[in-house]
Every structure is written in C-alpha cells, then in structure tokens.
C-alpha cells in the first residue's frame, strides 16, 4: 500500500510508512550518537568517572560499548521486522 498517495492520486508527503520508520530509527541512532559526542566534547569529566575500584572501566567506555551494541540490536530488530513484513506480502 502506498500511504503517501492522496484521494486524487497525488503524493501527500515525501515518504511511505516504512520510510518514515526508517527515518525515525536513523534519527534515533544518529541522535543518541551525537548526544554521546556532545557529552564527550563538553563534559569529558562525566565520562571519565570510573566504575570499578581499579579505575580501569569508565562511564565513557561503557557508553561507547553500549552505542556499538545499540547499532547492532536496533538494526537487527529492524531487519527481522522487514523480513517478516516481506514474507507476509509474498
């Protein structure tokens, strides 16, 4: 279904529902990333706080690892969703 097409067949907006979802996901990922970069840039001390007694694991390292995992998890979930949607169509 083309949810961008209006009653007269003319496009209402620039995106379909799938494209809007993709944009939302992309904007979320990019947003989380740039928040991390801004925190790194503006408040380095906050990310320097250590999480273990030996002082070898910092908030910054955990945040970096979480961001890497976030890319995988979000994209993996999205692929499963797309695959199910495509399978439903065929």
């Amino acid at each position, binding site marked *: 279904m*083309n949810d*961008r097409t209006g009653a007269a067949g*003319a*496009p209402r*907006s*620039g*995106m*379909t529902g799938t*494209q809007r979802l*993709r*944009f939302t*996901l*992309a904007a979320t*990922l*990019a947003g989380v*990333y*740039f928040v*991390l*970069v*801004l925190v*790194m*840039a*503006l408040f*380095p*001390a906050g*990310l*320097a706080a*250590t999480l*273990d007694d*030996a*002082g*070898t*694991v*910092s908030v*910054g*390292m955990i945040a*970096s*690892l979480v*961001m*890497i995992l976030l*890319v*995988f998890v*979000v*994209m993996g979930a*999205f*692929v499963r969703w*797309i695959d199910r949607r*495509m399978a439903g169509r065929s």
Partner: protein
Amino acid sequence: MSGLNLVAAATFGVFVAITLAITWWAARHTQSAHDFYAAGSRITGAQNGLAIAGDFLSAATFLGITGLTYLFGLDAVVYVLSALTGLALMTLLIAEPFRRLGRFTLSDVAAYRLRQKPVRAFTAVTSLVVVLFYLVSQMVGAGALIQLLSGLPYAGAVAIIGALMTIYVTAGGMVATTWVQIIKAVLMLIGIAVLAFSTLQQFDFDLLRLYREASAAHALGGRIFAPGAMLDPVSTVSLALALVFGFVGLPHVLMRLYTVPDARAAYHSMLYATLIIGVISAFVFFVIGYGAIPLLADAPGVRDAGGKIVGGSNMVAVHLARVVAGDFFLGFISASVFATILAVVAGLTLAGASALSHDLYANVLRHGQANEQEELRVTRGAALALGVISILLAVLFEKQNIAYMASLVFAISASANFPILILAIYWRGLTTRGALAGGGVGLVTTIALILLGPTVWVEILGNAKPIFPWMYPALFSMPAAFLVTWLVSALDRSPAAEEDRRQFDLQFQQLNS
C-alpha cells in the same frame, strides 16, 4: 624494520599473483558497461558486504585507529562510532532507493529527478575531487609505509601501487576491483583476529588486567579512559559530523550498491558490512589499541633515540604484530596492509574514471549519445590518466600532511554530496537550482575553511594565527549547504522548479512500485 621482510614479500607476491589472475578472468567476462561498472550486478549481498567492509578497512582506518587509541585512548572511539553510525544511516536511508534509482554512479541518483546535465556535472566534479584527494592521501601514505616496511624507495613504491591499480581497473573493471577488495578484506579479518587474540593472550585473556596495565603504562594514566585529550569540543563534533555523513556520500562505496542483483541485496550487503566493521572496529579499539600501550612500553626496537615510535603512531599496529607474534606475523600484517592500500585505491580509481566517462563524457558532453564501447574506451583512458596523475601528485605531495587531505575528503563528501543525495531521494521541494546552490556553498565553504584553518593557514602557509580557529569545517559547511539548498529551493517558483517537483512524484512511484 626497513629491511625486506621475506614473509611480507612472499605474501604480497601471492596476493598480487592471485588478483592479477582474477583480473585476467574478469577481463574475459567483462563485455558490457554494466559488467564493467557494476560487475553485471552478479555479486551476492554477503560478498558485497565484505567488499564494502574492505573499502572501510583502509590502511588509514586500521593503522590510524590503533595509533590514535594508543596516543589518546577513549577519544579514538569517535572514529569507530562515526563509521558505525554512518553505516547505519546508509543502510536505513540510502541503500535501497540508491540501488533502485541508479545504474552506475552517484550522479545517476542525484540527477534522476532533477535537470540531468547541471546536476550530473556538479556531482561528477565533487565525486572527482573526493576521489582524487582520497587517492593521493592513500598513495602518499602507502609510499611512506611500504618504504618503511620493505626498504623500497618511496617513488618506486608509489609507482608499483599506481601501476597495479590501473591494471585492475582498466582490464577487470568492477569484477576485478570487487574480488581484490574481498580477498584483502579476508586477509585483514584474519590478521586483526590473530592480532587481537595474541594481544589478549599476553594478559591471560583478562581484559581488565589489560586496561589496568595500559593505565599504568600511559603518560595520561587513567585519563586514557576519558575523552578530551585529542580535540577541542567544536572540532570533536565537527569531525564526527564529517565522518558520519561523509561516509554516506563516498562515491566508491556507493558504487558498490550497484554490484548486487536488487535493492534488497543492497540492503543486506550494508548489514553484512555493518556487522563486519562493527566487530573489527571493536577489536581494534578495545583490545589492539589499548593492548599496544603496555606491550610496546618497553619492547626493543619500537622507539627511536628520542623516545618516539619508529615510523610514527600509524606504525603502532605493525610494531605490536612483531611484539606479540614475531617476524612471521609482522610479514603477514605488512602484506595485508599493502593489499589493503591496493584494493582501496583500485576502488577509488574506478569511481573516478566512472565519473569522468559515464557522467561527464557520455551524459554531459555527448548528451547520452555515446555508445557502450566508446564509453568504456573513455573509462579505461580515464583510469589510466587517473593512475598517472595520482602517481605524480603522490610524488609531489610526499612531505604533505596526508591526514588533512583525508579529512578534506570526508568534509567535502558530507557538505557537497550528502545534502544533494538525501534531499534528492526524500524531499519533494528540492529543485535543481537549490541543489546546485547548496552543494556549491558546501564545497566552497569546506575548502575555504580548511584553507583558513590552523593546518593550512598556520602550519603550511606560516601565518601567526588561523582566521578559522578550528581544524574541521563540517559543523559549519554542512548546515550552510542544507540551509542554502532549502532556501533557494523554497524560493524557486520557476517552471523548471515545478518540473523538478513533478519528477519527484514519478521517482516516488518508481521507488515504491
């Protein structure tokens, strides 16, 4: 380290022999323009994912991220996460529509619904600028690296790389370029996996012990786990913007999306690439970069009389290979680095030659009237010319700051290519005038701010203070490009603008049919 390493020479020799055999095979199977530019769209998603990962895993990435982590610690994560974020954006927003709308080049998509000639000419020129700067920076780095690793003279090393890349591209086109990239990616994956394993082995596979010893051995102490050691806040954000959005607009990476059979395979190839690059980058950053700090602290042969790393911080990974796994593995890693450089410059040469022949010659100068054989002849000639020009420029720029050339590439791509690409696909209001004005502002602003910044204005031209105080321009040039594109498009009420908007509706139907 300047003597010839026999393992490196033998591994590289085998790599060159195999890739030349593939090139010979590819040449026999390359009949049409579709074969030449897009490997006949017969590459699978997984193979293409490896090739895209190979494009990302340039020598600069592997050696550069390791070196930066060694020097500054956590700040280097900007490079890792920017690449992953850029890949995610490319997967979600660009891969499928790009594959559906285009045939061979970035300009095919940018010009799909806008006026062909001006938009194609502009994006071909920005693609060429990106390719040429990237090519020269890679070759300057390659020459210096090979000279250091093998003892070959700089000019000779650059000439060998230039000659091989020209042979791959002119004879084998995208088929040969893709397989060279895949083989090299596998070599790099093996090399990085062994290097990470051997590094962890030195700490009995205890990652916290590795970090404790890194903290104790580094001059920054515990601050290697905190940001702020490498760049000021504005430069950090600006660099991240250039890396994220610049990656999305790189012509040689985008071209790879045409080598798979359909849009879905293009999408899957991006996912494979993200997975491979994510895992590799995590190993390089969290294990190899930090592990090098304690392991190279007192290792013999690593530092010169002044206490600096022999060959500079880019050689940290190479030194680490020798320290943790001996001369045999050093040879393997060195050969992988040669192969990496060769594969990346071949992809760049193909992208540049395609912009010259398919976009500028066939579609702008010959108004789309050139036949395939004529176009392919021009492509091969263009690849040869690019090979010669890049060898000469690499010799000329031997002493220049190549890191800056590379940063220019990403900043131009983010400010000139990316706005046009994303708005052409998704924004109905974009007009030809808006695209040209915004892209032009992005290109000119980037170059101007780089010329006026601390590296060129102060370090190269010798002035006392920079006019533009920050190292990276994307934070200013990219928003300027988007703003001007929006403003000019919104104010454009010409009949041509109406036609541009009408063409968007047809493009939309094409994308969703």
